[in-house]
């Protein structure tokens, strides 16, 4: 089922929880709604589910407007952040609750319950009560209850956030695999960017009720449309430096505190046509800065070295700015050592300081 949100808004009094949201989700696609706490992810999901009525705008399932369709007729399966498993029912009764309401015969209920339980390997737990299950098992039960109805849309509200790190990583791949096997259109809410990036086909980044960017993980990481997305995506996060654009002898320079970078011709022409004010923000990811001891580039000093195993996260200070850099562990450097840094100019990002918009994208 294709899902389209058109100019969707949901306000609670003065709070614009969701503001003018436009999304087009393809049939069978797995998308993530990503954003900081309180940005309106859950509200969006509940509006798609029909539990909230939109203040404005439309929700289409395929070509049909479903604004007035009640939740039970929307063919959705939903997993709540709290899982919302009924504590007084066994796992079996929880899973088959939707079927019981439809007066499905007990034999069919049993068969279907076993089928979905096998999908997520909980067929041995059917007689337990939710309180006797671990968080991961509860999460699977909740998933089963959503799947048993054979929904056309799956809505998941932070289903992994209550799990410990290891289980979360395991469930990530399992859930992704399951979604691909069943090819149910899925909206997955999370505030964890790693989760969003690793699982979803496309990620919708939201902030304060407004959609910031809706694209695939690669594009989101390498071509963020705004300062917010650039800063939100990526861990360790991107280096952002306030600079101003200066021009001399037909060349463009970025000037910040203690740094001066000459822009390649390709970039400078694009910046010139896009920028409205000379106040810019220069962004570069930690892996796109190289550190050398051969006195090439900008002179700087090592502040801290944090070994991450595969690589080291090094904080470097030059004049007043500090930068995060990822280096190979083979590069032996320590605090207060003098080093030289170089930017990979193909990978830099530039944003208008005022509007936060990227200046490098058309």
């Amino acid at each position, binding site marked *: 089922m294709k899902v389209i949100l058109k100019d969707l808004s949901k306000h609670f009094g003065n709070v614009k929880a969701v503001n003018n949201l436009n999304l087009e989700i393809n049939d069978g696609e797995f998308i993530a709604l990503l954003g900081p706490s309180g940005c309106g992810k859950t509200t969006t999901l509940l509006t798609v589910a*029909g539990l909230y009525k939109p203040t404005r705008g439309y929700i289409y399932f395929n070509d049909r407007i479903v604004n007035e369709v009640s939740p039970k007729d929307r063919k959705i399966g939903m997993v709540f952040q709290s899982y919302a498993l009924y504590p007084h029912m066994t796992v079996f009764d929880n899973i088959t609750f939707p079927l019981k309401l439809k007066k499905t015969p007990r034999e069919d209920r049993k068969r279907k319950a076993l089928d979905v339980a096998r999908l997520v390997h909980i067929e041995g737990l059917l007689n337990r009560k939710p309180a006797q299950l671990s968080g991961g098992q509860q999460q699977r039960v909740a998933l089963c209850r959503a799947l048993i109805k054979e929904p056309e849309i799956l809505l998941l509200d932070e289903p992994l956030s209550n799990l410990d790190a290891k289980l979360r990583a395991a469930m990530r791949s399992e859930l992704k695999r399951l979604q691909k096997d069943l090819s149910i259109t899925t909206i997955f809410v999370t505030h964890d960017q790693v989760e969003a990036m690793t699982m979803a086909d496309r990620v919708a980044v939201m902030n304060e009720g407004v959609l910031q960017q809706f694209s695939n993980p690669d594009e989101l990481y390498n071509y963020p449309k705004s300062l917010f997305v650039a800063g939100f995506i990526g861990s360790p996060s991107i280096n952002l430096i306030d600079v101003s654009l200066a021009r001399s002898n037909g060349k463009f320079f970025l000037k910040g505190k203690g740094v001066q970078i000459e822009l390649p011709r390709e970039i400078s022409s694009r910046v010139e046509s896009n920028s409205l004010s000379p106040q810019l923000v220069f962004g570069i990811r930690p892996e796109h800065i190289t550190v050398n001891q051969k006195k090439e580039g900008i002179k700087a000093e090592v502040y801290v070295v944090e070994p991450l195993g595969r690589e080291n996260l090094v904080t470097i200070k030059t004049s007043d700015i500090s930068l995060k850099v990822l280096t190979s562990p083979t590069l032996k450097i320590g605090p207060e050592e003098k080093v030289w840094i170089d930017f990979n100019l193909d990978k830099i990002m530039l944003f208008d300081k005022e509007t936060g918009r990227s200046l490098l994208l058309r």
Partner: protein
Amino acid sequence: MAKGWLKIRPHWFFLSPGVLLISFFYFIPVVLVFVIAFTNMDQAFNWRFVGLANFSRLFTLRDPLIPRIIKNTIVYIVGALPLTIIGALLISLLTMRVNRTASLFFRAVFFLPRLIPPVVWGFLWMWSFEGTRYGVFNSILGSFGLPIIHWFIKFPMLIVIFANGFLGISLAMLIFTSAIASIPRDYLWAAEIDGASFWQTSRFVIIPLLRWPIMTMTAWHLMSFINSYVYIFLITGGGPYHATEVWALYGYNTAFKNYQYGYGSSIMVVLVVINVLLLITLLRSFGMKKMIERSRIEA
């Protein structure tokens, strides 16, 4: 020295007013009732011990009223208890469906009986069902040109059940609505998405989650209906002709209307024993300990 004494056992000092009050008003009366139950104390407070005479009068049915009193008590409880619990549940569930203001209004209305002094509440019912044409319902009937009904002669027990049931409802409803309000919203949403109607949600989700409040209120009102006779006393006094006389009221009437203090006390002793047995049964079967430990709803 007072100071030294205080230092050693200050808690006794602070407890003493309470202990004295409780022993004076609770403990001593119970002991007195038990003693008097074995006497033939009468109007003039003349008494001597008569052994088990009072009890044998009760249990061998030499008192012809006893079967009637027992039947009344059972009918009264079997009527008023479900009315209270089911009525309160219905009202609490229905107030979920209306908007906040309306729900507050209805809950306030059903809570009113608790705020009205018992005498006024009793009088309201008496006056409403007054058998002459001056009673509220009879004057309504009269205004439609219908003949009056002798309510208290025709439906004495029903009136008494409803008068007490509404009081029960007001408390139970308060407990149930607050318990419903504390049910996580996600449960209700999950049920809604899964296609549950309002009644299905109530039956399969809400009511099971209210198990403990329902049990508490059932136990509470069972005890209350067995022991309290104030409203029956005020509305019918047990009449007409013992039609609404329940066990507790019979004990009262025997002692304070017929001045058979000895016999009245023995009736009350039976009530106390029933209470103790009931309490033990309730504690056992409901797991009252668990009930006290647990949160109000299973969430």
